[in-house]
């Protein structure tokens, strides 16, 4: 505790609040919701959360390239994502899809295309 003065106390306080703001949303539903006795409508709604949240995460990941919205061929991630989607659809293979995507990114950069 002797070196705690090296940290601004505002930073520690802010960190404490942010830890709570992170952990509470993670644990509260899992700890206190009874998942098997939820109202049918809510269960139905929750069943769409995985597909929705993954799409909400991946959409901006692919279309915002280097911080900017980019829907053109100069967006490497978009150019890699399109064939990756097709491969995922056909192969249904999780690791193959990831390896293919990473391989294309490495190849595109190694050859100086991007």
């Amino acid at each position, binding site marked *: 505790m002797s070196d705690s003065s090296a940290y601004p106390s505002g930073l520690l306080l802010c960190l404490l609040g942010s830890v709570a703001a992170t952990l509470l949303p993670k*644990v509260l539903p899992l700890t206190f919701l009874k998942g098997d006795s939820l109202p049918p*409508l809510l269960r139905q709604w*929750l069943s769409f959360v995985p*597909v929705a949240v993954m799409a909400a*995460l991946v959409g*901006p990941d692919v279309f915002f390239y280097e911080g900017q919205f980019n829907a053109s061929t100069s967006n490497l991630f978009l150019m890699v994502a399109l064939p990756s989607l097709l491969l995922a659809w056909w192969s249904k293979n999780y690791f193959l899809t990831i390896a293919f995507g990473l391989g294309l990114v490495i190849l595109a950069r190694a050859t100086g295309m991007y």
Partner: protein
Amino acid sequence: MSPSAFLSPVAEGLRRGLPIMLGYLPVGFAFGVLAVKNNIPPALAVGMSVLMFSGSGQFVFASLWGAGANALSIIAAVLIVNLRYLLQSAAETPWLSALPRLQRFLLGLGLTDETFAVQVTALQQGWSYNLTTLFVCNHSTQLAWVSGTGIGAFCGELVRDVKPLGLDYALTAMFLALLVPQCVSRLHVVVALFTAVLSIAFRGVGMSQWNIALATVIGASLGVWLLRRRDHSPRVCSVHTSADPDTNEREIQRGRHV
């Protein structure tokens, strides 16, 4: 992503965590570098990765702290960007409700976008959960996250660029590989496309902290609305008895066998 019958529970957890670890190392590294640049002491940056284990929340924290924002507005921003965890945590409950409360609490601590995506996909595909696998997957990935942060915070200048390795694309590659198996029916494809466009649009108009949670809430609501509308239309009512809670599970089953 089907669970392998040949692996021990620990190995299965590591297998699931591997692509996430590949992604977390460089992103954790980037966080460590950014945190120090924004006047956060290296040890505290590592502490954040241990205690928060939340990529977007930590990045928001570091950039706002560096910009001199006050504590309350930083905490509020972190909360907003983490609202999606409420949805993910709730979405896992139907599968895990048989577990004791303490174990559900501990599983919640290891929840991230990536571990959620991997675990819930396995559960949907009929995996009867194994606690060891769940915890190993959650915390092996956290180890990668913390290690990356430590390297970035304490010796950020040693590593030049992770870009040639393609690792800045690793998490996106993983989400794509997990999103496609989520699309078990035409309805799910519609929800995925709609939500992705909405999330991009929200971010485009500057709502970069709200976009994920808001788009997810609206997208899931669209899914329920379309499902109920279809189940209540006269043509389909002759097939379905009513919109019971398992309708969507049946939908998923049917989609898988098409």
